[in-house]
C-alpha cells in the first residue's frame, strides 16, 4: 500500500539522525584546545573510568555544558525558524531575518547598558535570567509588530523587508544606548554580540533548559494548527482552528525560544533559516509531526558541528560562533535559493 511506504521510511531516518546527534556530541566534547582521547571520555561519561582531575574539570564544567547549550541553541533556533516559515508561509522567514534576534538583542542591550545608567538596578539587570526575560520580551514585541504589519500586506517579500526595518529600528535604539553607555558595558555588549556557547554554568544551563522546554512544549501543542495553517488562514479557520489562539501559541513559542537563546548565546544567524530547509530535503514531508522532531535533531547536529569548528581543535584559539554559523549557513541558503524549487516551503 502506498500509505505505509511513506510512514515506514521515517523511523530509519530518525534513527540515523539520533546517531548523528550522539556522534557529533561526542566529537564536540572530545575536540578542543586540550586533546582528550574520545574513548576515555565515553568511558568517563558512563562512569566506567575516572579521568585526570584536570581533564575531568575541562569536561564537566566546560565542554559538557557547552555541548548541551549547542544542542539547545541549534534545535531551538531550527524550531523557531520552522514556526516562522509556516506562520508567515514564507520560505525565507526565520528568527534572524524577521528581526526577532534584533529585538532580543535590544532587550539584552537594555539590560547590559541600562545597568551602567541605572546603577541602583545593576544587580537586577546583570543577572542572566533578566537578559533572558527582556530578550524574550524584545523578540515578542518585534514579532507582534511584524505580524501586525503582515496582516495588512500579503506580499512575501514585503514581510521580509518589514522584518529588516524592525531590525533597523532595534539596532538604532541600541546605537543610542551605546552612545550613553559606559565603555565597560559597551565592550560587554559587543562580546555578547559575537555569540558564544560556552561560559554557562550548570545553573544557567538549567534555567536555559526550562525556558527551552516551555517553548518546545508550546510548539508541540501547535503541531495540528501548524499543519492546518499550511493551507492559509481561511482554510485553517474552515477546519475548525482558532486563528487567534494558534497564532498566539506559535508567537509565544518562538519568542521564548528565540529570546532565551539570544540572551544566553548572542544573536546567531542563519541556523533558524537553514535548518528547516535542510530538514525538508531529508524528509519528504510537510507534516509538522515529522518536521518538528526532525528539525530538533538536524539543528542539534548542525550547531554541534559548527561549535566543533569554532573550537579550532588543537589550537588555543576559539572563533566567535556567529562567524561560523554565517559562513556555514549562508551558502546553504544561497544554494537552496538557486535551486528555487527546493526553497519552497
Amino acid at each position, binding site marked *: 500500500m502506498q500509505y505505509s511506504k*511513506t510512514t515506514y521510511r521515517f523511523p530509519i531516518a530518525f534513527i540515523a539522525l539520533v546517531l548523528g546527534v550522539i556522534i557529533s556530541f561526542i566529537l564536540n566534547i572530545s575536540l578542543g584546545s586540550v586533546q582528550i582521547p574520545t574513548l576515555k571520555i565515553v568511558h568517563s561519561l558512563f562512569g566506567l573510568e575516572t579521568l585526570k582531575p584536570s581533564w575531568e574539570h575541562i569536561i564537566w564544567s566546560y565542554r559538557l555544558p557547552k555541548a548541551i547549550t549547542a544542542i539547545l541553541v541549534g534545535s531551538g533556533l531550527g524550531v523557531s525558524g520552522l514556526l516562522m516559515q509556516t506562520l508567515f508561509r514564507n520560505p525565507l522567514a526565520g528568527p534572524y531575518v524577521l528581526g526577532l534576534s534584533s529585538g532580543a538583542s535590544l532587550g539584552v542591550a537594555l539590560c547590559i547598558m541600562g545597568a551602567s545608567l541605572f546603577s541602583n538596578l545593576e544587580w537586577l539587570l546583570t543577572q542572566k535570567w533578566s537578559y533572558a526575560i527582556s530578550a524574550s520580551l524584545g523578540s515578542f514585541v518585534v514579532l507582534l509588530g511584524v505580524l501586525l504589519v503582515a496582516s495588512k500586506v500579503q506580499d512575501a517579500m514585503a514581510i521580509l523587508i518589514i522584518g529588516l526595518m524592525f531590525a533597523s529600528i532595534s539596532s538604532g535604539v541600541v546605537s543610542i544606548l551605546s552612545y550613553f553607555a559606559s565603555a565597560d558595558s559597551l565592550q560587554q555588549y559587543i562580546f555578547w554580540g559575537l555569540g558564544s556557547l560556552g561560559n554557562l554554568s550548570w545553573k544557567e544551563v538549567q534555567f536555559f533548559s526550562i525556558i527551552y522546554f516551555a517553548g518546545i512544549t508550546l510548539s508541540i501543542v501547535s503541531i495540528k494548527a501548524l499543519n*492546518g495553517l499550511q493551507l492559509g488562514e481561511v482554510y485553517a479557520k474552515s*477546519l475548525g482552528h482558532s486563528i487567534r489562539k494558534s497564532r498566539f501559541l506559535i508567537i509565544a513559542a518562538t519568542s521564548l525560544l528565540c529570546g532565551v537563546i539570544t540572551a544566553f548565546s548572542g544573536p546567531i544567524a542563519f541556523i533558524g533559516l537553514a535548518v528547516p530547509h535542510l530538514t525538508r530535503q531529508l524528509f519528504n514531508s*510537510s507534516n*509538522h509531526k515529522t518536521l518538528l522532531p526532525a528539525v530538533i535533531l538536524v539543528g542539534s547536529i548542525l550547531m554541534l558541528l559548527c561549535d566543533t569548528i569554532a573550537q579550532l581543535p588543537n589550537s588555543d584559539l576559539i572563533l566567535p560562533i556567529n562567524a561560523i554559523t554565517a559562513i556555514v549557513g549562508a551558502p546553504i541558503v544561497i544554494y537552496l535559493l538557486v535551486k528555487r524549487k527546493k526553497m519552497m516551503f
Partner: protein
Amino acid sequence: MKKNAFNIIDLDLGYPNKKGNEVILKKLNFHIEKGSLVALIGANGSGKSTLLRSLAKQQAFLSGTIEVDQKNQTTYSPLAWAQKVAWVHTENNLSQNLSVEELVRLGRQPYTNWLDRLNQQDIDTVEKAMRFTEVEQLSQKKCFELSDGQLQRALISRAIAQDTDIILLDEPTTHLDIHHKVNTLSLLQKLCTTLNKTILFSTHEIELALQVCNSFLCIHNEKVDLRSKSEIIESDILNVIFKHSSLYFDARQERFIFK
C-alpha cells in the same frame, strides 16, 4: 418535504464602518434545500464572495439570521462547524510543498486528535475522497507540480475528506480551460447526486451551470433570490443582471449571443 440546508432570514450583509454600516446586500430571505446543487451568479462586485463568506462563517454579517440545518449559525462551535461545512477557494496561497495526499489528509483535521493522528477510518475516508476525484495517481505529487485543473480536483478532494453535509466553493471554475471547467462542474454534480451533499458555488460560467444545476441564487440590485433553471431561462433575469449593449441571453438556445 425536504429539509433545508440553509435558511436565510432578513440577512443584511456588509462591512461595519465608522459612519454607520456599509450595506452590500439587504434583507435577504431565501432557503437552500438539502442535497441541491446551487450556482451563485451575479455581476462582478455584486457581493457574491461576501455572501459566500458569510454563509461559510468566515465573515461576520450585520444583522439577520443564518440557519444551517435548522440551527443558528452562531450556535455552532468552530469544530462542529468544520464538521458541517467545507470550504474551497482557489486563491492559491497554500504551501506549495504539500503533496496531494498530505493536502487531502488535512481535510480530516476536524476529526483528528490534538497531535493530528489519523486512524484507519480517517485513512479510508482520505483514500475514498482521492478516488472520487481521481487524484489517487497524483497522491505523491507536490502542489507546485500540479496543473490548475489537478489542483482544483485535489482541493475538492480535501473538502470531500472533511466529510461535511455542505460544501461551499468560491469560483471553482476560474483559471481553468473549458475541459477542466466541465470536469469540475460534473464532479460537483456527481458529488451532489451520489454523496447527497448540498453544494453552493459562485461562478461566471452561466451557460455551463445551466446544464448541471437546477437552482440558481441570483444577486441583483442588492437582492438575492433563488430561482429554478426554468425560471431563470423564462424570466428575463439574465438579461437584466448582465445588461450589455451588444449581448443578449437567448432563452431558446440557453446561451449568450452577440447582437
